[in-house]
């Protein structure tokens, strides 16, 4: 087990290194220069050079990359070119917001996906199964931003109700802070819920065919016990793997949902930074996102090994 963990970590390292290279190079390909954007037309050649030197943008690009890597090693993500605020400080303010949104979304996805999948699988081709499958198809086809628009639009037309647009800080009102995430997180989780439901249904159907389940039936166990205790445990193992993939898709979806609902999280930070060509911010956000996803995949693999004793490394 320990050697497996080590090997798994070793494989993740080169990918991470390549990822940092991508993270570093990508924003620098953006046409137009942040220095020109900052000074607009008011600057002369000398001013441009001065500002560039001040921001450290006049050094060779590979030197900038090495500097950046070294700074990361010291836990320093640099500072925003515009506000001169440390990226890490801004991030510690925004990451919890996105994390709360994402975790609630993941929770919604699991709470809807697994039970509905079980209900659908118990009576395949029944009425409930039909509805569950249709809902899943709908959930996968209607994009989150379309659902978000409809959810804000339809109640407004019918009852004149609009969701509150102001974001409440945790320190001001903790209950309102959590409550304001419910609607956006549910919308964010719908697509994942549909995927999880389909997988749970498929896996459970397969497991219910196996001999040991027939034995359980033959012992005279009740349906609840057979399905929930015997079959479900084996059926949800692949679902764990997919949960890891869902973290990535939720992280991407959060960008749009934050933008629509005006939630000051990482997604909005990223979109703003891209518009302003704020290299350190774009790099910092991308780096953190990649780290989180690589760590999630690692955790998923390890959890998988614990859950399924047939897998030995």
């Amino acid at each position: 087990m320990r050697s497996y963990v080590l090997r798994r970590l070793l494989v993740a390292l080169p990918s991470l290194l390549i990822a940092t290279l991508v993270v570093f190079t990508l924003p620098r390909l953006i046409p137009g220069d942040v220095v020109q954007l900052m000074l607009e037309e008011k600057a002369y050649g000398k001013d441009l050079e001065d500002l560039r030197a001040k921001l450290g943008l006049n050094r060779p690009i590979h030197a900038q990359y090495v500097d950046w890597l070294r700074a990361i090693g010291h836990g320093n993500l640099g500072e925003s070119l515009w506000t001169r605020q440390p990226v890490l400080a801004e991030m510690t303010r925004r990451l919890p917001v996105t994390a709360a949104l994402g975790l609630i979304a993941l929770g919604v996805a699991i709470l809807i996906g697994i039970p509905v999948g079980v209900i659908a699988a118990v009576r395949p081709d029944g009425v409930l199964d039909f509805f569950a499958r249709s809902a899943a198809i709908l959930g996968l086809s209607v994009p989150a931003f379309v659902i978000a628009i409809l959810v804000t639009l339809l109640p407004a037309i019918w009852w004149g109700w609009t969701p509150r647009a102001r974001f409440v800080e945790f320190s001001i009102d903790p209950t309102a802070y959590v409550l304001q995430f419910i609607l956006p997180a549910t919308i964010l989780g719908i697509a994942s819920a549909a995927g999880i439901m389909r997988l749970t249904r498929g896996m459970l159907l397969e497991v219910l065919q196996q001999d040991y389940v027939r034995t359980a039936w033959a012992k005279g166990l009740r349906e609840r016990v057979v399905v929930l205790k015997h079959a479900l445990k084996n059926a949800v193992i692949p679902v764990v793997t997919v949960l890891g993939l869902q973290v990535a898709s939720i992280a991407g979806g959060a960008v749009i949902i934050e933008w629509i609902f005006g939630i000051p999280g990482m997604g909005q930070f990223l979109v703003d930074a891209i518009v302003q060509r704020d290299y350190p911010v774009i790099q910092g956000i991308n780096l953190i996102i990649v780290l989180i996803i690589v760590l999630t995949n690692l955790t998923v693999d390890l959890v998988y090994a614990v859950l399924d004793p047939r897998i030995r490394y």
Partner: protein
Amino acid sequence: MTNSVHTLSVPKTSSRTWRLPSLVKLMLRFARRKPLGAIGGVIVLALLVMATFADRIAPYPYAESIQGARMKPPSIQFWMGTDNLSRDIWSRVVYGARISVTVGFATVALATLMATAIGVSSAYVGGAYDIVVQRVVDAWMSFPALVVVLSLMAALGPGLHNLILALSILGAASASRVIRGAALSVIANPYVEAARAVGSGHLRIVLLYVLPNVMATIIILATIGLGTVILAESALSFLGFGIPPPYPSWGAMLSGSGRSFMYYAPWMALFPAVAISLAVFGFNMLGDALRDVLDPRLRGSGRSASLL
């Protein structure tokens, strides 16, 4: 051998004097086995017709302001109403289909080409090349899709060509993984070894032995990818990183003016929203059904569980 010949009885020719062409018959059988897939197929067909004949179907040009018709609700003259710049929304939705279809097919074509080149070469060459390429693919796949495309679009700048390029670079990575897997299993076959023994060159082996046998996988990946790409295009245009106005992309129609005016003119947001959902639904259903019919082993793979 004789046995198998024996059991293959020739089907009786029907007494009907006419017969359906085999392609139609094949499609009917597909429709009976996969009704949802058939519905998807009809939607896709409708989209293609809208995209191809947009200038004949749309009653107005997509950017024309119609005098005295600002934010009119749906009526006989304007099926889906008009927007804040007095443009006919139905016409814009029709032209929007052209964008979705163009971006969808061009992206998938480009992505498939890249993915096939990467996947097949990685599987065929193997060794250090394979390891390096796969690590890069790993790194590429560990970014959330939307974040990659956003950063790429920011780097490339808005516009149709850049959008297609950014989306295909994204799609190529994960597709290449699946194609590599398929190619690996093909290369392990004795006939590839036989071809090598006979003295065929690398190019000949790849083109005549490996490629034809991974074609089914490639086609299925491409079909499934279409829905995802159309979804991604609308999401990017929604965020304002897609195709610049005045060209009508459904995602952009939903976000800019559609969102600011939606309480006064809900039809401005509703119809593009329905169009996006129907298109994604159609491609997804057709892709799923095709995969089940052509290659059930691929079930659950290759699909990035929708981008958002």
